[in-house]
């Protein structure tokens, strides 16, 4: 998921999958106001891919699968049940009865098929269409040769069958990401280019109005298939609200959630105030901030240089720079991700050792460039890294550019080093595979790809593919330990210098109630709108 700002981020907290304990009974009614600095770009589920619209879309639309609120445990959503064939190549979903779109029409299996085809069709320009590459017929649709996916069959209104070209252990997760959410064809076609501004889904909230640059209003979907959900009658998103200002407004009781998170300047003060103990919720997230090094060019084609960079960076100081809202990282995977290896210590901070390695590498004086997105605090983090590198004799010039330009420099292979902040990989779904193919595998190490290290290890790719073909329930542990081994090897290769794993802090008003897990919901950012409630509801 694309992250645009630092302070508020897409987060994935791995909670034990326990039923939510509610302190007091949630009430129906009331409303909540959430602020964001930037206007949303779109509410089209097949297109929206930044952390703000990601969860708003989740409240308006549904997919075949979802996660239990506040957890990362999969459960059927629009599907009532599913079966998997023994070879892992056929998934059969039975749809739930009584699901209606907001326009009143019942949802059927053909809507599901249409929605996936829409995601894969290049005309949609979906940033997530590539996720569905294992569905039979994908190549034809993605290549513009067909518009229907031969791998999706709809024998009747209630049944959808997916035929895959390869077994994929992540398939059920993919059925829960936004790009596969179900949209009504007639509304998409009616709205044309305006569809992203007039969404119609099956979800807990119904879209009411969008005043560009100012606000979006949603109201409770009274026909939602889950009884007594959602609790809130209405949600308003206000835009153009600087987070610093939003915090002051929250204190005054004007708004309920600072969508962008707590700005650095107010962080120490707010967290120190005992009155905020229950209002600021902390959670881990599946995020890693890292420096990529382009392994196809000198000096970073030399593994010793890459290891030296890993040892040169003082992660503790960088963590302090961002108000301790992160933990130092030692491997690509964040601690809450399955496959994280607590025994993998990575490279400890050791500037002397780094100098020694550089001397051994014998590459002479190193002059390089560090690309960084020009939104605070990323240039500051880059400057801290720059100082650390200078201390071991690596001169890195900073190139502070707009997000799009950094992505282009990374994608074209022009950037020797990139600090990932502001564009960091945050998992779209909680599985180690999601941290590999696009950003560390060969598939991403191409022109325009997102593997900015250009690290391509065919042997690792094969092992990854093998791991993901273990689809059976009893293979789960074996699969995760294989992924663990893969990431241990990736760490040793030092194509990245992992720097930290961000934590997530959500600041909400006293009027809002709900299990704390909902306020750092791993899937919904900043909060799970469907299950929070207003204490003052009548």
């Amino acid at each position: 998921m694309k992250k645009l700002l630092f302070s508020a981020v897409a987060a994935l907290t791995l909670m034990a999958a326990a039923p939510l304990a509610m302190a007091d009974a949630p009430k129906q009614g009331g409303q909540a106001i959430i602020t964001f600095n930037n206007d949303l770009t779109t509410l089209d589920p097949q297109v929206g891919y930044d952390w703000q619209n990601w969860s708003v879309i989740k409240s308006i639309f549904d997919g075949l699968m979802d996660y239990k609120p506040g957890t990362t445990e999969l459960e059927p959503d629009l599907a009532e049940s599913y079966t998997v064939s023994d070879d892992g190549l056929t998934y059969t979903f039975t749809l739930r009865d009584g699901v209606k779109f907001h326009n009143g029409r019942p949802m059927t299996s053909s809507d599901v098929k249409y929605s996936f085809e829409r995601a894969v069709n290049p005309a949609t320009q979906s940033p997530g269409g590539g996720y569905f590459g294992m569905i039979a017929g994908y190549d034809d649709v993605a290549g513009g040769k067909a518009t229907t996916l031969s791998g999706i069959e709809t024998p009747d209104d209630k049944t959808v069958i997916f035929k895959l070209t390869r077994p994929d252990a992540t398939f059920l997760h993919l059925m829960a990401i936004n790009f596969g959410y179900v949209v009504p064809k007639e509304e998409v076609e009616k709205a044309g280019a305006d569809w992203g501004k007039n969404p119609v889904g099956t979800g807990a909230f119904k879209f009411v109005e969008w005043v560009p640059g100012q606000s979006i209003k949603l109201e409770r979907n009274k026909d939602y298939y889950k009884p007594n959900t959602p609790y809130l009658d209405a949600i308003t998103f206000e835009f153009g609200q600087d987070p610093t200002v939003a915090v002051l407004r929250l204190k005054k009781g004007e708004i309920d959630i600072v969508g962008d998170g707590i700005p650095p300047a107010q962080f120490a003060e707010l967290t120190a105030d005992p009155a905020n103990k229950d209002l600021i919720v902390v959670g881990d997230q599946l995020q890693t901030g890292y420096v990529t090094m382009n392994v196809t060019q000198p000096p970073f084609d030399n593994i010793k240089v890459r290891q030296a960079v890993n040892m040169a960076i003082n992660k503790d100081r960088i963590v302090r720079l961002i108000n301790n809202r992160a933990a130092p990282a030692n491997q690509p995977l964040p601690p809450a991700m399955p496959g994280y290896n607590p025994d993998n210590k990575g490279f400890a901070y050791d500037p002397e050792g780094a100098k020694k390695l550089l001397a051994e590498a014998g590459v002479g004086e190193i002059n390089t460039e560090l690309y960084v997105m020009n939104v605070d605090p990323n240039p500051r983090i880059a400057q801290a890294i720059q100082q650390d590198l200078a201390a071991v004799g690596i001169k890195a010039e900073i190139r502070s550019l707009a997000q799009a330009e950094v992505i282009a420099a990374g994608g074209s292979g022009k950037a020797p080093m990139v600090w990932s902040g502001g564009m960091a990989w945050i998992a779209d779904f909680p599985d180690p595979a999601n941290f590999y193919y696009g950003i560390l595998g060969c598939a991403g190490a191409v022109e325009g790809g997102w593997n900015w290290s250009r690290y391509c290890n065919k042997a690792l790719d094969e092992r990854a593919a093998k791991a993901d073909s273990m689809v059976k329930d009893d293979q789960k542990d074996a699969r995760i330990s294989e992924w663990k081994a893969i990431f241990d090897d990736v760490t040793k290769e030092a194509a990245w210098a992992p720097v930290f794993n961000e934590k997530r802090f959500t600041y909400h008003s006293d009027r809002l109630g709900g299990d704390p897990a909902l306020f750092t919901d791993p899937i919904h950012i900043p909060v799970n709108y469907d299950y929070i409630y207003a204490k003052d509801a009548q």
Partner: protein
Amino acid sequence: MLRYLAKRLAASVLILLGVSIVTFGLTFMIPADPVTMIAGRNSTPQMREQIRVQLGLDKPIPEQYARYLGRLVTGDLGISYARKSEVAPLVASRLPPTLLLMLGAIIAELMIGLPAGIYAATRRGRFGDKAAMTLSFLSVSTPQFVLGLTLLYLFAYLWNWFPLGGYGKISNLILPALTLGLAGGGWYSRMMRSSMIEVLRNDYIRTARAKGMSEWRVVMKHGFRNAILPIVAMIGLDVGIFMSGVVVVENVFGWPGIGQLMWQAIQSLDIPVIMGVTIVAACFIVLGNLIADLVSPLIDPRIRLR
């Protein structure tokens, strides 16, 4: 006059054509690939190629420009990369707040500049004059982002007189309008001063004074009316200056206008939006310049400042 008007109009159209070429050329030279942004992290090269074809980016650049221009004349500004919706209605929806802000800024600069200029002119050479003119330089030397943050800090945060940014009420407008208009107020006070001094030298003013009219009435009735004309002609030129200012001011105050839209588009390299806003801004600037050009010679051929 009509011939002059026609000539100026034709020149304006040519300028806008030039603007479209330059904008198109500049956005092509920016080192970023929109396809990478659109296609996302799991895209295959094959899919990126498809998107490239769809955006028409595979065509030779002159052909792309011709298509672009063809759409432009029909008022079609293309489809936003990030939003996948049409740019023209998007810009149109963000335009009213910006125009409102500019109107507020014009009122602010006139309300600051005219009284200050008149005051300085009537106190010519004395302390009041010096003080007013020094303040006018202070106002033109203040960076807008510093002024905006300072006003927010003092009047919204510390003293709570105005809201901390936002949009919708007249109280939201005052601080950003002041931020945008203060520098112009400084310029206008200087222009008003010199214009007024020149008018007050005229014979009819002397006559009026000789008739025993009070100095206040002389200044307001005869002086003001004649001195303000050259200033009115300058207002059209403000548009160009404001179009830069709104990018900063709208971002500091969270004002939902085209400046904010522009900044977001620049950050995400949403090229159709960048081009659309630039063209629309250029239209307003050219229109403003045209008005100034048409009005100035009617009033005073000597004015060519700023």
